[in-house]
């Protein structure tokens, strides 16, 4: 965009001399703006595409890593749930044994006597 001398458009545009000055700069201003901007816009659009592609690749890599981590964590959770259910079964088995029930009864009687 061309730029006339600093402060050249300081004058109010609705004054006569201001209008004349404006009209003299209108054509060059608009034409140059359009010509250069196409090039600028295209150049930046290509950079934006590169940026977008890089971001997609980066996000995809992060997504894959996150999915891998999710699978690892899910495997750990599944394994721990199996271990937990095995321990619960064992615990219940112990609680239902004759020795546990006898001991439990003994402690209840002892508790009642202490009161």
């Amino acid at each position: 965009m061309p730029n006339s001398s600093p402060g050249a458009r300081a004058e109010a545009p609705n004054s006569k001399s201001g209008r004349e000055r404006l009209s003299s700069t209108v054509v060059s201003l608009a034409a140059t703006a359009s010509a250069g901007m196409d090039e600028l816009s295209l150049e930046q659009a290509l950079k934006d595409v590169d940026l977008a592609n890089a971001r997609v690749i980066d996000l995809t890599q992060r997504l894959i890593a996150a999915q891998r981590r999710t699978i690892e964590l899910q495997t750990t959770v599944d394994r721990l749930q199996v271990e937990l259910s095995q321990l619960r079964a064992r615990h219940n088995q112990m609680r239902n044994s004759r020795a546990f029930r006898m001991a439990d009864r003994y402690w209840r009687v002892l508790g009642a006597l202490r009161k």
Partner: protein
Amino acid sequence: MSRAPRVLFAVAVYNGPDVVPDCLRSAARMIHATCAVDILALDDASPMPGFSRDVERLCGELGIGYYRSPRNLGIPRNFNLALLQALRGGYDFVVLANSDVIFSGRVVEELVAVAASDDSIGSVTAWSNHASIYSLPNTQPDRFLSDQAIVDWVADTIAAEFGDAAVDIPVGVGFCMCIPTRVLRVVGLMDPVFGRGYCEENDWTLRSKALGFRIVLSPSAFAYHVGGNSTVAAGLVSRGEYTVPANERILDFRYPLYRSQVDSFQSSEILDTLVDRALARIVVAAAAEWGYDITIGHLRGPETGATMARIALEVQGDGLEVVGAFRGFTGRMDIDGEDLVRAVVDRVGREPVAIRLYDQTLRRGLPRLSVDHPELVEEVTYPGRV
């Protein structure tokens, strides 16, 4: 800077036949005695039939540069064109503006004066009736402020109060924002991740802050802003909404402290002080210029202050408070003393056109109520209830 600074003033356009012509005319008549300004309208492939052609013609008449992108870019990338053009064209400052704004005559000079006052300033946001959390409240802005003359008057009045003050703010607002190009070289462009727009300028200013630059508001650079016009037209947000939630989430992710910083700013008295001083100044200046009436016990009503200022003495707690209204602005005035009416007249510097007593009990509560012209005093009774 020995020579006058060069400024690229870019207006992002997308449809908006109701607002864009006024905006461009307003931009074209801006005063730039202290800087050389080139104005550029960036039409983001407005789809409305004939609209782009009309805007191009108007730009030609006004001496404004015009560029229509061959396809829609969205606000961030459209603004990036302006930023790139500013860098390529060797400008010292670039102003990014929406197209639903009426700029005050001195807005560029005010923005540039503040931006040039300190090398650490990375961006300067203008002040407005609609500038996110920084808004100067007005009850009917579309009715009372959408006029170039009143925008200029409000801006001049506020500028007389604040001068070249730069108020540090937590984040910038892009409806009218000035960026020094030397800062632009460090911070870079707007991030296209914000797609069709919203939050891109917040992100940019927060990025600039992380790099050590200040984000400031220039209260003296006032502009009237409709708000949301192009984004509503584009279907980006619904009418009455002012943001895009997905883009807000990006901000939250990148700047976890941002919300709390905004909350802290709002909790401080900075903004309240700014608004109170501006409103009081506007009311007093309006009263001095266009006249005023004083009411005792009554301020309200949509027409209050429509043609001239109104200053009301109202009950507030145990005492009386002086409140002024003018064209949708309502502000508390820091006036006290035994004779409030006389104090108001002294502050304004001229007599009121009328003093209306709506509440006789308040008159009895006033220790003194002296006026030079008792004939002005009119006792008003409320109409009987229907």
